[in-house]
């Protein structure tokens, strides 16, 4: 696989077009919304989380915004991963995701844990793109801190 093909795996391009969870759900019950911006390219992403009544579980994640295929795919993959997940587990996964993406290719994300998002491991070799992949995750982290 060339550098480019490992960065833009079919799975990623596919998610960037499918955009799972695109379109913000209504604010309802315990929910929070975070707006993130990448000053480098001017991309914007808004991510909303809705929690269970006890606040312990993620009901769903939805989002809106424009950006490169990495940022769009990453949001889409995160939606699939986080839905129905205990809040604490999601926070831990976000930490692990950040660590892997900042590792410059030394840490691979585990497919059994990160599902499709594991395909984003390759981004960590492209320092300038890490921010694109992180955008949705940072937004969800922000949501969870405030919901």
């Amino acid at each position, binding site marked *: 696989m060339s550098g480019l093909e490992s960065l833009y795996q079919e799975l990623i391009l596919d998610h960037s077009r499918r955009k799972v969870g695109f379109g913000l759900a209504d604010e309802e019950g315990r929910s929070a919304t975070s707006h993130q911006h990448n000053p480098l390219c001017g991309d914007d992403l808004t991510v909303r989380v809705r929690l269970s009544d006890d606040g312990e579980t993620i009901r769903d994640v939805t989002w809106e915004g424009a950006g*490169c295929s990495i940022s769009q795919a990453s949001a889409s993959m995160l939606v699939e991963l986080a839905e129905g997940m205990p809040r604490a587990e999601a926070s831990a996964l976000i930490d692990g995701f950040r660590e892997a993406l900042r590792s410059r290719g030394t840490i691979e994300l585990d497919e059994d844990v990160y599902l499709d998002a594991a395909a984003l491991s390759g981004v960590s070799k492209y320092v300038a793109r890490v921010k694109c992949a992180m955008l949705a995750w940072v937004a969800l982290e922000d949501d969870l801190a405030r919901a």
Partner: protein
Amino acid sequence: MLDLAAIRADFPLLSERVGGTPLVYLDSAATSQKPQAVIDAEVEFLTRTNAGVHRGAHALAAEATELFEDARATVAAFVGAPPEQLVWTNGATAGLNLVAYSLGNATAGRGAPGSARFALRPGDELVVTESEHHANLIPWQELAGRTGAVLRHIPVHDDGTIDLDAAASVISNRSRVVAFPHVSNVLGIVNPVAELVALAQAVGALTVLDACQSAPHLPLDLPALGVDLAVFSGHKMLGPYGIGGLYGRADVLDDLPPFLTGGSMITTVSLDEAEYLPPPQRFEAGTQPVSQAIGLAAAVRYLDAVGMPAVHAHERALEARMGDGLRQIPGIRLLGDAEGVERVGLWAFDVDGVHAHDVSQFLDDRGVAVRVGHHCAQPLHRRFGLTASVRASAALYNTPDEVDQLLDAVAGVRGFFGAGA
């Protein structure tokens, strides 16, 4: 015709390989590569003559001072100006901030009596264009915010040319400053300086020219252009980082209050007040970027040796080849694709269905280095309904072959990303 092989051999970085492929560097509008002569001039200075300038009696300091002032004369001559009308700055951003803050200081009553003519009153207007780089926009926003002046802008047409009809109505008796780019770093169009200067002069407004993207590419005679003030950056014209120039008309520089204050710009200082030297020293507080000034002088000597008319003709040919090629690739939209205008060698474009970031990543993989983003011109991108674009920009060392490599790579983008290929 340029001897491209010889020129390329002067630029060590151009023989770098990115993952095995030779580098096609088409990002000179961001920062240019430096010829060996520039690097050598700085190293030679640092290893033989380095010493504080303008303040020492020892032989080394005297020699350093001489080289430093010779550099000023060389760079001034490159833009058609006498040495005392060239102020060293750390770059175009620093130069534009110098002017904006100096006007703010005049407004606050600072400076010699002659400075009063620059004082702004609430309601006075500062005029920029819609195509401004943030460096020629935000300093004016902040000046307006501090003084109560009002910031207005001249729109551009859909093809990127300045709307001169609108300019004639935006520029009015209330205008105190008219600031505009000689060449926008997104559009590449050489703007109608004479027309804008005439409009500004008719109402007595100060003209400020951002010559960042023209100085490396065109023969430049700033006094002949008739502007009051102009800035450029060394690192975009084959020179070092951290050095640039502010040109000013003699009477304007004479009356502007200082901006940065400190050592080497004063005559007499007490604990309570200071008296200032005449220009250019008045605007050069503290230790100057001495080796960088000497490096920039080497850069303009290099450009002069090649010849700016030849540089411009060469880049113009590259620009035409690039524009023609890009227009033929489906889904490509060029920004500033105006007819019958003078241009420099750059094109910014949008690829339908593929985000600019993804485009540049794809090009990078093919060894073609371009820039992506808003290029510090968010309002202009918004004007075109975009948040980001891809920009390929050439310098004297680029070849037609490199342009073809760019075109080949761009042609593959939409297929790779599955965008309506």
